């Protein structure tokens, strides 16, 4: 951690901007590392990217307030808030600001914020659950009681109800409405006050206005029946309105909490403590945050690996299901890499720590997921932009109809304005999109498809052309080496094939390409490879072509496609799908592989084609072989023998027509192509580079995940359209009714609350089982 942060935490005591309850402990670099990813170089300026868990948000407009409060601070480079998941991602400069200041700024804006580490987030969820349940109960229980007290005035004939009894009933309703206003209405009033103070119109403003106007007018009518407010009381509609608001919010909170819990349970594999081996052979238990690169750690059988590192001994097997999608435990040898968050299945192992905290691959995946949750999709941003003008129009309509009615019939002017304010529900407008997308992402995560960008759902639902990588995507990720043939003058010498294989394997260990892995696996099967490896220098990997390195005598060796290994070699050997080993440009050995189609490839391809998606096979292999695979799957278009640039050009050409173009791939050589596609999907076992540029990751490694994604995307977009259509139709029909005075405030409250509840319930369908049913 940089010295700047340590220095900053020392001087934080004299900072003026401090809020109650924020401990400067959050400025401790160790503590920061738990929810912060560092960007930039080690020495000079580092940029922190921190996740915060927010509370107290009621509407999409709050995101703007919190973002504004954060970006107003010096040192904050950017802040992004997602209303649906209640998370914020802040980019900040630790040299110019402190985490405790950021938290204090959010609190001063009227919201809660804690670092997004699971424990405190869980505590916050529990507190929020209690508070919402409490407000829902106060609202709904008291609304029923107020309704009972209000019933006599509805059913009594003229003169049946004595004036003093009516007065007593009104008084009873007033008493019971006070807790509802205090507990249930206050959050809206506070929200409205905050947004007014910041000169921003939030969704709370018209709600609070309606509440205050209704309560004040009814109170006046209760205590002064002959006064300016008339004698009608509306405590029943007021309390019912608040109860409905909280019911909608309760449903939304449950959906959000469920999504958060799913994410946490999927990613909470990290242990709290680790067993560090000391030099004298003893073992001490330390917090995982205290581990440093270079430490030696013992991991008991059945425990999770605390950090990324290298094995110091043999291990029976490590389960990496979450990190790589590989469900079987992977046997590991001395010198192999083990990843944080994987489970040590068989016997205790010892390892040397290489990367800790936010730098580990596990944390990279966690960060990917968090980023997706705190991201506002383009469509939701549109809803935010619409919300402001929408509110002004509503306020203008309310004022206009009040003015008109004060001419026609002054006694009804107030109530018409109130019902116009209450009936308009922009919540449905700005709530539907994020709630639906988050619900869909939660449902997909359960099926092993992680979305790193919520926009992917929209693009995937409009997908027309899908480019599919062959190796590792349509075919099983592990090709099997079927032949190693030495060529050249020494070819006939016995044992030469084995020597060539071992030589190739020592070089292939530097790469994570499936072919390299197959060569290493085949060589290791014959005899264990030495731990240190051979003395290769200047090893480099050219994506899509192969590896090159120089040996101890300075001779260049290459391992890869024929064109790469033998630039001047015989042309007829080019692009035959085999991997060649060459010494100074002369072929030494040829390795050929067998590929197996994934078991679910055929039905997934057929299903996607039935959906009207045009599939194109992209492959670096020679055309004959790619053609063969395509024919077996029934794919008509094949672009074979192409390197990354050719793939990119093909994809760009397809995009020219304006169609939505997708790309599914796995390896290193796909990353630029994926970045260029409108929507990209990475298979879970692929290189991390490809995942980084992917919009979705199929962690399970099943191709069926593509069908799940498509089905869920189509359903999600249909639900979003339904919700938008519903709120538009609702407003279009109710606002005129309210303006001409046919809609009493209680019915307006019912309508608004019901519309919110309907939208949220509809959004929940996106995560339902039917959206994720298997292909039959």
């Amino acid at each position, binding site marked *: 951690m940089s010295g700047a942060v340590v220095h900053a935490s020392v001087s934080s005591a004299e900072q003026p901007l401090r809020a109650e309850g924020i401990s400067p402990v959050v400025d401790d670099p160790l503590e920061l590392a738990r929810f912060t990813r560092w960007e930039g170089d080690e020495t000079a300026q580092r940029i922190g990217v921190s996740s915060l868990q927010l509370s107290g948000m009621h509407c999409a407009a709050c995101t703007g307030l919190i973002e504004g409060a954060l970006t107003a601070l010096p040192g904050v480079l950017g802040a992004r808030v997602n209303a649906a998941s209640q998370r914020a991602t802040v980019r900040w400069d630790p040299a110019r600001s402190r985490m405790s200041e950021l938290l204090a700024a959010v609190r001063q804006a009227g919201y809660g914020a804690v670092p997004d580490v699971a424990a405190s987030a869980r505590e916050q969820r*529990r507190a929020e659950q209690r508070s919402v349940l409490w407000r829902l*109960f106060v609202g709904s*229980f*008291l609304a029923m009681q107020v309704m009972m007290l209000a019933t006599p005035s509805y059913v009594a004939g003229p003169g049946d109800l004595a004036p003093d*009894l009516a007065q007593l009933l009104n008084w009873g309703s007033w*008493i*019971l409405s006070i807790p509802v206003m205090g507990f249930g209405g206050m959050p809206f009033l506070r929200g409205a006050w905050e947004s007014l103070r910041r000169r921003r119109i939030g969704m709370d403003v018209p709600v609070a206005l309606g509440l205050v106007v209704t309560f004040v007018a009814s109170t006046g009518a209760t205590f002064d029946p002959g006064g300016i407010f008339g004698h009608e009381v509306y405590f029943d509609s007021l309390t019912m309105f608040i109860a409905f608001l909280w019911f909608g919010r309760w449903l939304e909170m449950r959906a959000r909490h469920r999504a958060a819990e799913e994410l946490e349970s999927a990613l909470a594999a990290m242990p709290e403590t680790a067993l560090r081996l000391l030099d004298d052979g003893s073992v001490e238990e330390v917090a995982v945050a205290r581990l440093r690169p270079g430490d030696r750690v013992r991991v008991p059988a059945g425990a999770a690996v605390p950090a990324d590192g290298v094995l110091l001994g043999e291990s029976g097997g490590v389960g990496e299901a979450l990190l790589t999608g590989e469900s079987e435990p992977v046997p590991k040898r001395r010198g192999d890499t083990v990843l944080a968050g994987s489970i040590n299945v068989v016997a205790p192992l010892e390892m040397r720590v290489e990367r800790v905290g936010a730098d580990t691959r596990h944390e990279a995946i966690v960060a990917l997921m968090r980023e997706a949750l705190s991201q506002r999709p383009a469509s939701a941003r549109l809803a935010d932009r619409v919300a402001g003008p929408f509110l002004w129009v509503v306020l203008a309509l309310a004022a206009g109809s009040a003015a008109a009615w004060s001419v026609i019939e002054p006694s009804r002017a107030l109530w018409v304005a109130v019902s116009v304010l209450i009936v308009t529900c922009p919540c449905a407008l700005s709530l539907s999109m994020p709630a639906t997308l988050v619900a869909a992402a939660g449902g997909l995560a359960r099926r092993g498809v992680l979305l790193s960008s919520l926009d992917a759902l929209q693009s995937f639902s409009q997908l027309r052309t899908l480019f599919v990588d062959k190796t590792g995507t349509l075919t099983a990720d592990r090709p099997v080496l079927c032949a190693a043939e030495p060529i050249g003058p020494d070819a006939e010498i016995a044992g030469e094939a084995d020597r060539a294989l071992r030589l190739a394997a020592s070089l292939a260990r530097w790469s994570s390409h499936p072919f390299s892995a197959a060569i290493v696996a085949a060589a290791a099967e014959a005899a264990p490879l030495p731990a240190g490896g051979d003395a290769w220098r200047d090893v480099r990997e050219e994506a899509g072509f192969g590896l090159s390195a120089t040996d101890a005598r300075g001779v260049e060796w290459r391992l890869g496609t024929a064109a790469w290994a033998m630039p001047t070699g015989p042309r007829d050997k080019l692009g035959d799908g085999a991997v060649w080993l060459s010494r100074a440009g002369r072929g030494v050995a040829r390795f050929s592989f067998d590929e197996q189609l994934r078991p679910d490839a055929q039905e997934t391809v057929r299903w996607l084609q039935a959906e009207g998606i045009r599939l194109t096979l992209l492959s670096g292999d020679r055309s004959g072989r790619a053609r063969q695979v395509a024919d077996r799957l029934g794919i008509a278009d094949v672009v074979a023998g192409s390197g990354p640039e050719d793939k990119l050009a093909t994809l760009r050409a397809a995009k020219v027509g304006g169609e939505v173009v997708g790309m599914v791939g796995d390896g290193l050589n796909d990353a630029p192509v994926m970045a260029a596609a409108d929507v990209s999907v990475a298979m879970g076992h692929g290189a991390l580079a490809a995942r980084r540029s992917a919009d979705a990751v199929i962690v399970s490694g099943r191709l069926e995940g593509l069908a799940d994604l498509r089905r869920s995307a189509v359903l999600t977009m249909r639900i979003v359209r339904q919700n938008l259509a519903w709120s538009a139709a609702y407003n279009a029909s109710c606002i005129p009714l309210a303006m001409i005075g046919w809609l009493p405030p209680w019915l307006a409250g019912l309508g608004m609350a019901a519309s919110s509840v309907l939208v949220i319930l509809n959004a929940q369908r996106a995560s339902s089982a039917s959206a994720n049913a298997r292909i039959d």
Partner: protein
Amino acid sequence: MDILYLLIPLSAVLILVIVGIFGWAVYSGQFDDVEREGERPLMDEPEAADGPGARQRGD
């Protein structure tokens, strides 16, 4: 009908008391995990704490 002048204020007070009791129940955590209370009779041993350690002992 005169009894209404007593009953209405009485019911208002009673309702507020009920709301108070519910508030105490919510904030003392009785609704945090409703399912677990139902499963409690099925557990072999009483749960000592909400820790993973408590579960491991049972296996």
